[in-house]
């Protein structure tokens, strides 16, 4: 473990062909303005532009084709390194690369390729239009790849379970000095606390009641604080136990500022007990208690906006997250863990349920991504100091149909129901934007005073 796979992402529609990136690269590598020396090449294509640059591939063809072992994938940085002392100038690599990422430089008579400028690419810095972006999706892998998975393999979740993904990622990041509460639901259902005396969890873990997760954890944390030990209190709870029957204890703990990280894994219903409706089930959704028949067509109310309710408790930290946006999720985990040392931190993670929402088990991340890209799910975070802000704003949302049509639980929707969902999403977006705007106004006012 530990290899990085970072790359430079090109947003073609944002590129205006200014070539500043090529100038910056030529300057950085050869101290000239000669674009021919640039490792990045912006190439006109039709009415727009294409990018020719080394992608630092995970499975680089240039490395395979090099007969002299002059090219290698750096296990630490993930960059494809070129060793000038070994290179025999055969140029086979330039043939092997499909991206124009390694090319012959007539001035130096050697091949040249991008070396990522030690992690701070000059081209990206020079780009003013946002067309170039240094993408470090592997940061998580680098930082968390070597962390111990605190759940043993073999949790009995459904195939393709997104919640298992959340559990494993969250606990890796949180580490072993923790007490974990997993109230009844999918999480203990797949064995977090175990069966008949055996458990697959390597940290202290327990079943609270469905109703008292936040208050039991409050007692644990307070006693450790009293005895001078810093033990993080963490809940991994479903949306039913959080939004419905457990809401009183949650609200009380939040109001008292109990120090804990409460992670709500929202799969929009009681999926473990057979897919019944919860307060977080969205309008129109089929569940086993909001079935579809001649007279009924799924849930007739909108979902409770639980994370916003937690904002109203003025928690130390509140955020929404999605497994389709892992960097965002990890950033929020970090901030939530920090906040949980002095106050109540609440993380609401959307968790598409292949079994209960009726979609193929290999489409979890796709569904999660579509939810965000259609603004069905909004990614934001809040703390009392900075207010509420989007972390992944989606300005041009894709049509909601793209999300609804992949889920069996919405298969029955008629036009009026879809229209209702569209209105609800618009209201929700406007409401959250209102909070973001209020934040801007508040900081402007603070600036004036």
């Amino acid at each position, binding site marked *: 473990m530990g290899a990085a796979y970072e790359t430079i992402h090109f947003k073609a529609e944002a590129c205006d062909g200014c070539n500043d990136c090529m100038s910056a690269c030529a300057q950085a590598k050869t101290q000239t303005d000669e674009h021919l020396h640039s490792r990045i090449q912006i190439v006109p294509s039709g009415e727009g532009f294409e990018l020719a640059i080394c992608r630092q591939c995970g499975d680089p063809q240039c490395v395979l084709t090099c007969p002299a072992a002059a090219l290698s994938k750096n296990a630490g940085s993930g960059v494809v390194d070129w060793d000038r002392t070994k290179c025999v100038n055969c140029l086979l690599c330039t043939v092997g690369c499909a991206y124009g990422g390694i090319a012959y430089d007539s001035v130096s008579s050697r091949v040249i390729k991008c070396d990522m400028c030690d992690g701070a690419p000059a081209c990206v810095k020079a780009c003013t239009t946002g067309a170039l972006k240094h993408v470090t999706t592997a940061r998580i892998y680098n930082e968390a790849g070597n962390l111990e998975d605190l759940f043993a393999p073999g949790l009995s979740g459904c195939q393709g379970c997104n919640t298992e993904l959340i559990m494993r990622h969250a606990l890796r990041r949180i580490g*072993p000095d923790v007490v974990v509460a997993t109230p009844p639901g999918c999480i203990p259902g797949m064995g977090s606390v175990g069966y008949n005396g055996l458990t697959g969890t390597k940290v202290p873990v327990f079943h609270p*009641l469905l109703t008292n997760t936040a208050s*039991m954890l409050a007692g644990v944390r*307070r006693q450790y604080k009293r005895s001078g030990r810093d033990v993080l209190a963490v809940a991994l709870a479903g949306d039913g136990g959080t939004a419905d029957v457990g809401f009183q204890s949650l609200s009380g703990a939040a109001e008292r500022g109990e120090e804990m990280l409460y992670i709500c894994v929202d799969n929009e219903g009681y999926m473990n007990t057979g897919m019944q409706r919860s307060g977080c089930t969205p309008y129109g959704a089929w569940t086993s208690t909001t079935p579809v028949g001649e007279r009924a067509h799924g849930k007739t109310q909108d979902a409770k906006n639980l994370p916003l309710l937690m904002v109203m408790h003025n928690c130390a930290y509140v955020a929404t997250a999605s497994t389709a946006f892992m960097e965002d999720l990890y950033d929020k985990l970090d901030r939530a863990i920090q906040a949980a040392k002095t106050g109540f931190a609440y993380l609401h993670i959307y968790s598409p349920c292949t079994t209960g929402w009726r979609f193929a088990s290999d489409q979890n991340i796709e569904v999660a991504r579509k939810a965000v890209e259609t603004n069905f799910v909004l990614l934001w975070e809040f703390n009392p100091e900075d207010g509420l802000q989007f972390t992944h704003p989606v300005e041009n949302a894709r049509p909601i149909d793209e999300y609804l049509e992949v889920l069996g639980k919405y298969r029955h929707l008629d036009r009026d129901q879809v229209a209702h969902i569209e209105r609800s999403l618009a209201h929700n977006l406007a409401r959250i934007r209102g909070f973001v705007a209020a934040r801007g106004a508040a900081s402007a006012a603070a600036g004036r005073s």
Partner: protein
Amino acid sequence: MSAILKPKSKLIVCDGNEAAAWAVSLADVDMVAVYPITPQSSLVEYLAKFIADGRLGAEIVDVEGEHSVLSVLQGACLAGARTYTASCGPGLAFMFEPYLRTPGLRLPLVMTIVTRDTLTPQSVWGGHQDAMSVREVGWVQMYCESVQEVLDTTIMAYRIAEHRDVMLPVNICHDGNYLSFGAARCELPDQGEVRDFLGAKDVNWHVALDPQRPMAVDPLTGGAGGPGPSTFVRYRKGQCSGMQNSLEVISEVHEDWGRRFGRYHAPLIESYRMEGADYAMITIGSMTGAAKDAVDEARARGEKVGLLKVKTYRPFPAQALADALAQVKAAGVVDRSVSFGWNCGPLFQDVIAAMYYAPRRIPAMSFIGGLAGADLTISHFERVIGRIKELARDGHAAETVWLNEKD
């Protein structure tokens, strides 16, 4: 009760709620979680004040309801805390879900029930219906007669609950209104001596949420065909054993308390003037004072009546009760609550079940009084004594007698 004050003890006048708060202070409790309810409220106010004044070093958690009261304390106990709370009536009903779970987790929580009648009819007054309604859940239950007994029993409860052969939660029940607000002379023992009496806190040696000794607390058990049901049975039997073990532990602890502090309270059943008694009246809680006066007056008239006070109600000291009743010709039980479905008092049911162990059948009758704060006076007990005397003579038990029906 000793008339001579122990050298380091202090004498105060207080009500039962304040006495319980003093006991909690002396027992060096770590965590108190509270939610106010009549007639318990002044008890938690005293605790809050003691903590605010620095007299009690515990942390107080003012939670949003009784359900969270027990939940916070369960969490704290699993992390090593000695804990306390108090509740009653609707509050006890609301905390029932975690209450039900506490004995199975074998957590030595200590909780006072300032007894109150249950809704409905609406009532905020004393009665045992709340405590009696949870009698089969697995908490040890001890009922007090006096303010002093409230204080002494509350401290003793920690040693009983935390005894390694017991490891069960304990309720100390004291009567709403009569003990909660009735002021009396009360001796406060010395804190150091109480500390010696209780010994070191050792609440989570068997089950803990602690990263230094990670374990999964309360995994699923059961399910036909696997090892589940037998695991479940072992837990259940263990819980029953803890309950039965507590009978001896309660007796030992009361005996040791008497030796150290000079006050000997009957641990399970108190026999009052049972020498040569032809018939017996059985009481529970604060009503016993007036009942003893009635027995004294009857004895002065030459009646051969005695009294048995049940202090430890769960586990039920069945053998001790059967032995104490072995020689009588009839018995009457006065309950401050009702067993729906049997048309009698719950203590009466337990007594007649225990009398199965007696060598012969003893006629018995159920009396119900003192509901919703009604006073049980000497004259009520005179009626009871008169009726039991008839029963001893003719053996014809009547239906349950409701003592305050026509007051």
